[in-house]
């Protein structure tokens, strides 16, 4: 895929310049100086020769075949050049030129023209407004980056060219190699998804890195990322996440969602390893590019000092890694050569007087332990240690055994030679122990992802027809919100159990209804104009007698008539009062890019404060539902604390799956909340006590 870009038969630089410092000059220079071996054609109508190469007035004048066009002419001329590419049968272009969509309405018009022209001409292009691209293996550097990265196995695509160069420069200093670098620019033609696919198929690329600011088609991203991440680690840094759009939402789910939640869910569901900073992006890349994946969560820490060991242990504790006790045999082995005052448990403290030999023996012994899936080696530069020797020792062992070894030789000045040795032998070295831990943790997660069984999507089909009429009716009446009775019908059809309810128009009817349902009861105002009933005192609970019901009827209706004189009161709902159980919330919201998302949280009235919630993009699998419930911090409350019985967690999971199905069946749902969903004891199910639905769009 995209071979014309990465291994072109020849390159033409349209807009090549004789003036150093101009983009058209620097690109040409980069192509020449970094060893591209095929023909290069500078195109400039006013020059006969640039940088020792014969220049042509136009690509139409080049006598030989051209593989890749690199375009650096003014924006107004780009479409014309693309037209010429068609005449010459060139199918790949990198458009460096800026002044398109990013620069305003005039530029947007030009970009639209460009896209149209390229489509007609059958020319695919990267950019515009990009920095170019680099392939270290085919020695193609059609960029104006300063320098050429080392050959390596990290493929990197970046929406920001500037950030891309900064990372490449950093990598040069650290001797880190790249396979490819692509500056994506405005992504007017070739998209992130296509590049991800190309890098997934590229034999020289082992790890894919990406920096993105947004995606244009969330579903497509999800689909491609899921496929790519099963083949190779896909590490992405996503910036520009704010909570905009949440304010206008009237449901809890809507208010709690937001761009952050959508991307977080999308990344989780597609196996993308998410970096939260440039530092993390780099750290993860190093680990994945150089070390094998751990086959489980168990980590051992070897250190020559207490402090860093504890820091690493704390960081492991916050991650999903486990600091396991070593096998008896391993401890016995360690005892044979470590001083008696050393710590033989995990973290293994080989003491401040440790030299390279102790590191080598300890690491070897620990790696023999079957329980250990990965090792983090820490070193602080004491006076007795020969850092280079220790680095060599660690590197030697690391290359013998197929388990991940990450190091943190802490410090800088006295560490640097050791660090270089480690890097040379593909052992990533981190400045701080926490970085090593979080990198290993990311690898462990990726191990889980690629070994995950196929997901199961239970089918709750066949329910759709029954509620389609309701949604159609709401749409016909130009309403957004569904009434209480409509919501009741929908949930009933989809199998949610709900409290017994009866609508009363007068207090006599209310008393009769309460008697029929059985005391105690809950009473709620029913009015199409009132969404949040309790805000205006429209809800009373735990009413135990005829008098209480009569009084409540008077109070509720009077209050509402007073506060909202124009609201139509349909009556008061008399509802069975469900007692016991735990309150959770679940809901659906619609994200502009990823479509329907589903939320779960422990809550009741405090849900918006606690924000202890989890999100997934719909549809969700049984496994997703399982994870969603367990992801919340308050999950132990459902398990039962201090001798409580366990709540019906299975019923929650099933409810999530049904709700997911409902959203799948009805794309028109824009918001839905079941809040609270009361979870009873294990085996007794859940009850949807209150719910709201809103539809919109097509």
């Amino acid at each position, binding site marked *: 895929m995209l071979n014309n870009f990465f291994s072109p038969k020849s390159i033409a630089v349209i807009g090549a310049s004789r003036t150093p410092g101009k983009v058209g000059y620097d690109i040409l220079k980069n192509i020449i100086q970094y060893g591209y071996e095929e023909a290069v054609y500078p195109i400039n109508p006013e020059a006969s020769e640039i940088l020792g190469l014969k220049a042509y007035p136009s690509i139409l004048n080049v006598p030989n075949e051209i593989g890749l066009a690199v375009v650096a002419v003014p924006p107004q001329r780009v479409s014309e050049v693309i037209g010429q590419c068609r005449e010459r049968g060139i199918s790949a272009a990198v458009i460096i030129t800026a002044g398109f969509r990013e620069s305003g309405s005039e530029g947007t018009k030009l970009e639209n023209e460009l896209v149209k022209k390229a489509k007609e001409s059958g020319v695919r292009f990267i950019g515009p407004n990009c920095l170019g691209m680099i392939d270290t293996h085919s020695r193609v550097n059609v960029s104006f980056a300063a320098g050429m990265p080392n050959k390596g196995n990290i493929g990197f695509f970046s929406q920001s060219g500037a950030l891309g160069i900064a990372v490449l420069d950093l990598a040069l200093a650290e001797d880190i190699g790249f396979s490819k670098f692509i500056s994506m620019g405005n992504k007017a033609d070739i998209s992130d998804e296509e590049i991800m696919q190309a890098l997934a198929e590229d034999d020289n690329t082992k790890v894919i890195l990406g920096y993105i600011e947004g995606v244009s088609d969330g579903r497509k991203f999800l689909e491609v990322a899921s496929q790519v991440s099963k083949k190779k680690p896909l590490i992405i840094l996503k910036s520009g996440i704010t909570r905009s759009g949440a*304010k*206008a939402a*009237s449901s809890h789910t809507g*208010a709690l969602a937001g761009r952050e939640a959508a991307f977080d869910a999308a990344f989780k569901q597609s196996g993308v390893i998410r970096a939260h900073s440039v530092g993390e992006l780099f750290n993860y890349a190093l680990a994945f590019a150089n070390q094998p994946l751990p086959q489980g969560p168990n980590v051992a820490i070897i250190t020559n000092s207490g402090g860093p060991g504890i820091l690493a242990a704390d960081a492991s504790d916050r991650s999903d890694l486990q600091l396991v006790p070593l096998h008896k045999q391993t401890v016995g082995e360690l005892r044979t050569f470590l001083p008696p005052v050393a710590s033989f448990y995990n973290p293994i403290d080989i003491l401040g007087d440790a030299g390279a030999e102790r590191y080598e023996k300890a690491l070897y012994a620990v790696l023999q332990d079957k329980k250990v899936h990965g090792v983090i080696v820490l070193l602080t530069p004491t006076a007795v240690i020969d850092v280079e020797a220790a680095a060599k020792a660690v590197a030697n062992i690391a290359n013998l055994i197929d388990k991940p070894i990450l190091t943190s030789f802490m410090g800088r000045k006295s560490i640097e030679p050791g660090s270089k040795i480690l890097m040379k032998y593909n052992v990533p070295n981190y400045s701080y122990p926490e970085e090593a831990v979080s990198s290993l943790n990311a690898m462990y997660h990726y191990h889980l992802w690629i070994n995950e069984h196929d997901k199961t999507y239970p089918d709750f089909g066949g329910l759709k027809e029954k509620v389609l009429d309701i949604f159609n009716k709401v749409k016909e009446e130009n309403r957004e919100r569904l009434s209480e009775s409509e919501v009741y019908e929908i949930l009933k059809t989809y199998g949610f159990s709900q409290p017994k309810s009866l609508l009363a*128009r*007068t*207090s006599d009817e209310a008393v009769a209804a309460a008697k029929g349902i059985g005391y105690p009861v809950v009473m709620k105002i029913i009015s199409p104009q009132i969404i*949040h009933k309790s*805000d*205006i*005192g429209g809800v009373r609970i735990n009413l135990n007698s005829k008098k209480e019901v009569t009084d409540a*009827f*008077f109070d509720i*209706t*009077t209050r509402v*008539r*007073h*506060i909202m*004189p*124009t609201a139509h*009161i349909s009556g008061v709902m008399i509802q069975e009062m469900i007692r016991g159980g735990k309150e959770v919330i679940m809901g659906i919201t619609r994200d502009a890019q990823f479509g329907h998302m589903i939320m779960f949280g422990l809550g009741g009235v405090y849900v*918006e404060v606690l924000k202890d919630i989890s999100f997934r993009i719909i549809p969700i699998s049984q496994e997703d539902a399982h994870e969603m419930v367990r992801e919340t911090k308050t999950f132990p409350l459902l398990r039962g604390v201090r001798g409580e019985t366990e709540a019906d967690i299975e019923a929650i999971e099933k409810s999530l799956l049904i709700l997911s199905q409902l959203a799948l069946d009805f794309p028109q749902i824009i918001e839905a909340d079941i809040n609270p969903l009361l979870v009873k004891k294990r085996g007794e199910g859940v009850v949807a006590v209150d719910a709201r639905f809103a539809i919109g769009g097509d």
Partner: protein
Amino acid sequence: MISLYVGSTSGYSGKSLVSMGLGHKFKKDGFRVGYFKPVGILPIKVNDVLTDNDAWRIYRALELKDPISEICPVVLTQELAVKGYLKDVKGLLAKIVKSYNQLSKDKDIILVGGYGSIYSGGVLGISGLKVIKRLNAKVVIVVKYEGEFCVDYILQAKKDLGDHFIGVILNKVTHEYKQGVEDYIVPFLKRKDVDILGILPHDSIVGSITIEELNDMLGGKVLCCHDRLNNLVEHFLIGAMQVDRATEYFKRTKNNAVIVGGDRADIQLSAIESGTECLVLTGELYPSEIIIARAELKDIPILVVRDDTYSVAKKLERLSVRLRLRDKAKVARSTDLVAENVNFPLFYEKLGIKPQPR
């Protein structure tokens, strides 16, 4: 015994204010005064007796002693409204007459408070006109002055009421309308044989609302300064501008409440610093602790409401037409307003009575 019906041609014109003010003056002039509200629309239970909230307040303000159960015999609850829609409710007029007879026994003047306009009451088959005729009451019409078109309604009311009609009180005449009323409306009405019994100017205190009422109306949550909820708000301002303009804007108006998005900490701070009476934060967005601490220091209550700023403003605009006389300061102010601006000599002449100093 004289029965004086305080009616109007439209709802929320200031009947309660006028009733309260007239009652005070009549008492002061030595009359034995009673208050009666045939039909109430603001249900409230006092010691488990169903009555009307406005009637109950006037009853207390005039320090009356009659049985509460009789001051408002018919209260339009949701229950009664539903019954009235579904079938004719019978016997209500008889109930009204019975209570009226009991109340009027030892009185010189009974103030009869109308509800809505003199034409309202159809659902229950007891319109103001019907009650007026049955009680043989004299009628003063209170008009909230909102432009010239009100004269047509006044003339129609005069025609419909015939001999019962004694004159009008123009209420809430703003500074802008004052000149026009004096130059054109008064001479015109006089020419049409309509007596003008008083012209009450617009008053910002009477038009104010307590923070507690405000919070009730908006269904909000009070975050701090619970002891300041009786403070009165006279004006509402929207905080949607750049912060450098805000302070100046807020300071220009006194006794204001500032409506602002819950996430606009900058505007909230400048409202607090400029000494607003109350902050209304919209969008169910809670402010930071710093804001709350500052507000507490300056005794400014913060309300958090679910609606967005526009919806709140819309609600408040509707609210201003149906303010109620709840607060002591407001009651005192309205009593003064009536005493100072009603032509009592003419009033007594029309009623055919004379003050009886005790």
